[in-house]
């Protein structure tokens, strides 16, 4: 195990490298577009560097033993995303995204300050679970706004917020605590239906609640992607807790049934599927399929090396700055750029799962695993949509897409992972000391 100080200096050098890449990308964008805007871009670069310096100092003070790759990988993805967003809109989205990054870092540090011991979170599981459900369903109420056919937004004045992003974290905490408490009960099969053993229905409650919830998301908010995301987070956590692959299979079947009903019910979902299957159909390509087709054109035009930052035409993709920011990278940095981004996400997911493996309690393991799985699955769903592996759904690419709610939630997520990771390294292993820690056993 690395010493805390060694981890931090390693983090610092990697962070510097990541920021050089991020700021360098930003500088290239500025030069390619119009060298005169350098004066307005320079403060943004300085702000970005300062924000991550603050995050680094925050970690040194608050979680010195935490994983040293979380922050540099975050900075790299964030920096590349920022360059892409800035490239699309240097006057509005670009500066706003920097502001959100600063707010995100503040929230990151604040989370580390508030959550000194992640196990405390388990105590608030019902409050958090309830909050999560509320946040998730809020857009379905009259407060919600429909954007691009999906009702995922809350609009208060000119300010819009995607509460689903934060709901995700609340629900992961709830399930981690709930499952840590009852995993034996859930794993113990008291009933047998055909060849599958099921636990008592009262322990199965959360599964049903979750299933209903994700269907509600699909029906009222018309978004298959978020629905899939929530359901898969829960199934994976259930599997980790109980080791019963059968639950996962049953869950998937149930989800598939729900998805089919959604497909039959909503023309919006049918169109998404039709576009996915046949995007280059002349009937679809200029209307419903336009966005996905433009995304594929961007990626294909990028080829292996890309056109170079600021040299392509990713502005042709509608909403490129949110869901399709990956296609912007694909056009201007080519397969080399997209592969690098995919590898960064893979590394982050890998680090997250390592943290989960190292957690000293069931709750810690489930929490870290749930958080990083939600992060990873969300990434895979949107990437798969943009490159036409799955029907397109409107969820954001973590740390890269434009948008405050997404950025803030993912900073909270990273802070929680850093907290778990810090406690893994700084606390004595109960197996070695024989001490039993609050919140569960190994």
């Amino acid at each position, binding site marked *: 195990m690395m010493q805390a100080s060694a981890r931090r200096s390693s983090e610092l050098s990697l962070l510097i490298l990541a920021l050089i890449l991020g700021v360098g990308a930003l500088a290239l964008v500025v030069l390619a577009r119009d060298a005169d805007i350098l004066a307005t871009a320079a403060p943004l670069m300085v702000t970005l560097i300062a924000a991550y310096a603050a995050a680094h100092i925050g970690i040194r003070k608050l979680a010195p033993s935490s994983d040293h790759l979380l922050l540099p990988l975050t900075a790299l993805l964030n920096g590349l995303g920022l360059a892409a967003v800035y490239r699309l809109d240097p006057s509005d989205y670009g500066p706003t995204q920097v502001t959100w990054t600063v707010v995100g870092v503040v929230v990151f540090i604040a989370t580390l300050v508030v959550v000194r011991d992640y196990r405390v979170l388990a105590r608030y599981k019902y409050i958090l679970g309830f909050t999560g459900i509320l946040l998730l369903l809020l857009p379905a109420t009259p407060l919600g706004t429909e954007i691009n056919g999906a009702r995922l937004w809350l609009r208060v004045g000119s300010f819009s917020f995607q509460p689903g992003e934060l709901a995700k974290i609340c629900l992961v905490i709830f399930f981690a605590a709930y499952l840590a408490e009852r995993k034996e009960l859930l794993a113990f099969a008291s009933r047998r239906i055909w060849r599958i053993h099921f636990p008592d229905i009262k322990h199965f409650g959360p599964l049903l609640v979750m299933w209903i919830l994700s269907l509600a998301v699909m029906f009222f908010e018309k978004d298959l992607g978020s629905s899939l995301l929530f359901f898969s987070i829960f199934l994976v956590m259930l599997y980790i*807790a109980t080791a019963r692959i059968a639950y996962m299979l049953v869950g998937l079947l149930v989800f598939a049934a729900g998805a089919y009903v959604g497909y039959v019910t909503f023309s919006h979902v049918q169109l998404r599927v039709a576009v996915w299957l046949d995007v280059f159909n002349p009937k679809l390509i200029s209307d419903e399929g336009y966005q996905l087709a433009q995304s594929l054109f961007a990626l294909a035009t990028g080829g292996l090396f890309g056109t170079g930052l600021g040299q392509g035409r990713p502005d042709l993709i509608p909403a490129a700055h949110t869901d399709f920011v990956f296609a912007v990278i694909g056009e201007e940095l080519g397969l080399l750029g997209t592969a690098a981004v995919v590898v960064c*996400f893979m590394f982050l997911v890998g680090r997250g799962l390592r943290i989960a493996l190292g957690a000293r309690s069931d709750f810690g393991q489930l929490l870290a695993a749930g958080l990083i799985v939600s992060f990873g699955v969300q990434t895979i769903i949107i990437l798969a949509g943009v490159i036409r592996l799955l029907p397109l759904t409107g969820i954001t690419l973590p740390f890269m897409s434009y948008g405050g709610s997404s950025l803030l939630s993912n900073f909270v997520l990273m802070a929680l992972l850093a907290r778990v990771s810090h406690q893994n390294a700084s606390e004595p292993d109960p197996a070695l000391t024989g001490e039993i820690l609050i919140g569960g056993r190994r």
Partner: protein
Amino acid sequence: MQAQIRRVAWGLVAAFLIVFAQLNYVQIFAAEDIASNDSNIRSLLAEYAIKRGDIETLDFETVARSRKTQDRFQYLRAYPGGELYGHITGYYSLIYGSDRIESTYSEQLLGESGVISMQDIQDSFLSSGERGDDVRLTVHSQLQQVAAEALGGQEGSVVALDPSSGEVRAMYSNPTYDPGPLSTHDTEKIRAYRQSLQPNSPDSPLLSKATSRSFPPGSTFKVVTTAAALESGRFTPTSSFPDPEALDLPLTDNTLTNFTNTSCTGTGSIDLFTALVQSCDTTFAILGLRLPEELRRTAGALGFNEPLPFDVGTAASTFPDVPDDQEPLRAFAGIGQGDVAATPLQMALVAATVANGGQVPRPQLVREVRDASGSVIEQQRSAPLGRAFSAATAQELTRMMTSVVAEGTGTAAQIDGVEVAGKTGTAQTVEGAAPHAWFICFAPASNPRIAVAVLVENGGELGSEATGGAVAAPVAKAVIEADRRIRQW
């Protein structure tokens, strides 16, 4: 739980690998296929972001230029030359691509050819300010103007070229069109204008009849027949031919009569010289029957049966290979009827070849390509297409054609102080339609400076009363006079 977390990890890795595989497919393996989809307008946008070079006349009048705009296509193509140059410049359209010089010189106009200059290096660093090269035509603006005016409202074509270099000095075809509306950025407007031009009709104004459509050349083709006869060594200008009122055609009971329905001289015989001056059909029908191979060879050497090499697309002129069992058709071929068809450009080239001593000049429309600073980076100098007949034959033909204008069917082309050599043609078309009036000529006969072909379709203003001498010759005369005035010869 650790075992489950490890399995989940492998599951996620697998998902990321599938994403990576699909990325390889989209960005590498299927990339060309995907990117070449018509709905991907990236290459179009990149092209429109370049300031395309000007197209200008020999006397530096700009006929096509690009102007900066505020829309997403950064430059708009404008055509100060308008309809007058429509068939030369062609258009540059978002929907229909490009045509004519805009098409064949696209690389140069976009600045993608030639040597890399310091400007190019600067451009590659700052992606703005790219500028293409200018194309200078061989066409003289004043002569082009005169050609159009002389033709007036009549449908037809005028082609004037320098017989020694093959440079086209004027090339006009009526009806014509304005490339401007086809080159706007308003797709609705583009479609509507193109539709108004009846794009699928063979008579569409989009088509330059000077180069892209062939017509029966009628008696102007007798110049070619005479050339073949003299080249064969079996005939001279004084060779005597029978002069019947009607020529019996082999294999049938049909006869071929002269234009006037009488014999040409009334003496029972006629020499070749007089036959050409008077445009005696029976004489050339006899030659067509007797010299099918020689005639086909001469026509081929002049450019028939293949599209002429040119700076813009051309249709092939045709001279048929008549099988023995259809022998009568050879008689019609000898007088430029039947299956013989020629573009006005081809007939101008026939006149130019006689003027050029038998060497067929390679016709060209572009003088040079110049970069933004004005220095010439590409010069068009091409070798002649070959020799069609000897200098001696050319000399005899010149003598005969001079007499056509001096005392034959082409007197309307006479110019004070200038010896014009020419040949008229009045070509039968379909039953009941007025004939096409032709005139091909060059001047001055002794030291040719300009060769002209004029076609007035369906008789023009005179309709069925038209002859080449009455309708087409005055147009050619106006062009020669204008060239003489412009170049002061």
